[in-house]
């Protein structure tokens, strides 16, 4: 029973991880850039929801569009001001460029909001639980998971069923050929950053409902997102989805496992370590990730 409960919690958390990973994998699929600042985008999404709901006295769930818009603008700005120029350089310069962006955003947040841990206290769903048979689920987590699933499906629809999405995927597959077909690849890059920023903004707005927000919160999530994106295979959207859920389940199941075998050492403080370890094992055994098409 305890295992089933952990599994359910893991799936809920995993849906959010998947949404965080989605932006990362789209951006990577488009232009082979790993965005270190992704976690900081998430942090800014969290702050946006926190502040708008606090200052305007509205429910945090209604402020999601604000987070999405801030995330999109952030993505666009970082593409046009930084990433465009980074694309000319080698991989290491790209990594450090986005790393610089990450440091910049993190300390900007620290400068603006201080280092306090903040959490949303008021809200329609905050603190309420849903009893589903023997399982107790937090309403905030449940609704966040459902909304993130909706956001994920929406982006999936956008990419696979619309003309715009087709152009985007064509660019990811072969930039030059897409260019010959009259697709403005530069604009597609910007679009990828916009979608990436928007989805992670929404994810931030959802996560802040049950997670503390502070300027360095991004690091934990970006590492999880890296691990899940790489597990699923860089550039693969399906991979990001399943790997996100897998990561969520590992993270929740591991402490239960440690508890069951009665080991002190395998406690909850190692739950993320296990995620990194699982990543390491998976990519070593299957270097292109579970669903990867890009090496």
């Amino acid at each position: 029973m305890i295992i089933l409960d952990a599994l359910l919690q893991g799936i809920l958390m995993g849906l959010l991880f998947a949404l965080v990973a989605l932006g990362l994998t789209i951006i990577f699929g488009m232009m082979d850039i790993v965005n270190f600042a992704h976690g900081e985008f998430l942090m800014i999404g969290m702050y946006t929801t926190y502040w708008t709901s606090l200052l305007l006295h509205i429910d945090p769930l209604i402020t999601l569009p604000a987070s999405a818009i801030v995330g999109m603008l952030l993505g666009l700005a970082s593409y046009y001001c930084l990433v465009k120029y980074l694309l000319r350089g080698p991989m290491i310069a790209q990594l450090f460029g986005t790393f610089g962006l990450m440091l910049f955003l993190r300390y900007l947040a620290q400068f603006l909001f201080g280092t306090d841990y903040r959490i949303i206290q008021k809200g329609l769903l905050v603190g309420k639980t849903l009893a589903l048979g023997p399982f107790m689920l937090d309403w905030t987590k449940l609704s966040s998971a459902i909304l993130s699933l909706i956001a994920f499906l929406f982006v999936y629809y956008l990419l696979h069923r619309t003309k715009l999405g087709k152009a985007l995927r064509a660019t990811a597959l072969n930039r030059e050929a897409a260019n010959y077909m009259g697709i403005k690849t530069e604009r597609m890059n910007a679009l990828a950053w916009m979608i990436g920023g928007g989805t992670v903004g929404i994810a931030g707005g959802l996560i802040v409902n049950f997670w503390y927000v502070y300027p360095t919160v991004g690091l934990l999530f970006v590492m999880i997102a890296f691990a899940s994106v790489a597990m699923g295979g860089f550039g693969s959207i399906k991979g990001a989805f399943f790997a996100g859920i897998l990561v969520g389940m590992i993270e929740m199941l591991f402490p239960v496992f440690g508890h069951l075998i009665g080991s002190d050492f395998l406690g909850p403080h190692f739950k993320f370590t296990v995620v990194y370890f699982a990543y390491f094992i998976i990519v070593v055994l299957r270097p292109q990730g579970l669903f990867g098409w890009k090496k």
Partner: protein
Amino acid sequence: MEKIRDAFDFRDFSKPEKVGFAIFTLFLLIFPWLGAGSFVKAVAIQFLLFSLFGMGWNTIGGYGGQVELGKAQYVGIGAYTVALTMVWWKIPFWVSMPIGVLIAIGYSFIIGYPLFRLKGHYFAIATICTSLVLQDIFINWKLVGAAKGIELPIREHPDFLYMQFKSDTYYFYFIMALFYVAIFYMNWFRKSKLGYQLRMIKEDEEAAESLGIDARWCKIKAYSIASAFVAVGGGFLAVYNLYIDPYSVMDLDLSIKIALMSMLGGAGSMWGPIIGSAFLVPLDRFLGSWLGAQKGLIGVDFMIYAALIMIVSAYQPRGIWGIIEQFRKRGA
């Protein structure tokens, strides 16, 4: 014999480089007597230490072209070996440091073997992951002090065996000696067979393999050399700070700083890591002490630092050394 000659042979450098290096050496030799304050001395020690780290990283990251972002775990291995053996068995620094280096090399072979199956971004993130796993283990491992870290026992009198001195001057000369050993080693390394093989792998791995170079084995060798360098620096860090914890010696930020300094200075060149740390370490420390002390400006120093990183990586990915060479070519 030839190897030793190669290490001390600087003839193939250009004249400005040779003159610059000589002046720099002289300056370092007299530096402690110039009346600098303890803060400036600490910054100078940091600079030499990070140059040492950077030169180590340069073997795999610069010459080999592998984006390696997990060097902090070897700093940790070096530092913890020295600290733990000193606390538990009172083993002197001169014994424990080589042991730390050997452990680092052994560990680097163990994780290097699976690690170098990976390429590109998968490799970069896997190196971060291995470092984080080790850090997490040390944070939770009660035997080695867990998150609290370890304090080294302080000796009453300055002791050469345990490398404990009252004055920073001794530490300065000691790290300077290590720094020069590293320079001579790198001078040999760049002309060695492995050095050429690595550069070939960086240019075109498939072509290198078709010429009979075992790319994976070369990378593992370079990786363990880099790890040995970094572990030496880690051992020094333990006796210099007399206190270590997993956050200060194994953090992701440290790994990234090491790679970043080499990259900003100019990866794959002899002077790159030194220039990079000569630029970034003082910038980091002085900005921190100047702006960090002002009320209401928390974090502004890091914002400036971050902006600089972004500008250099967007404008000249080959780093400061790349900019210098660009000017030199235009002049010639």
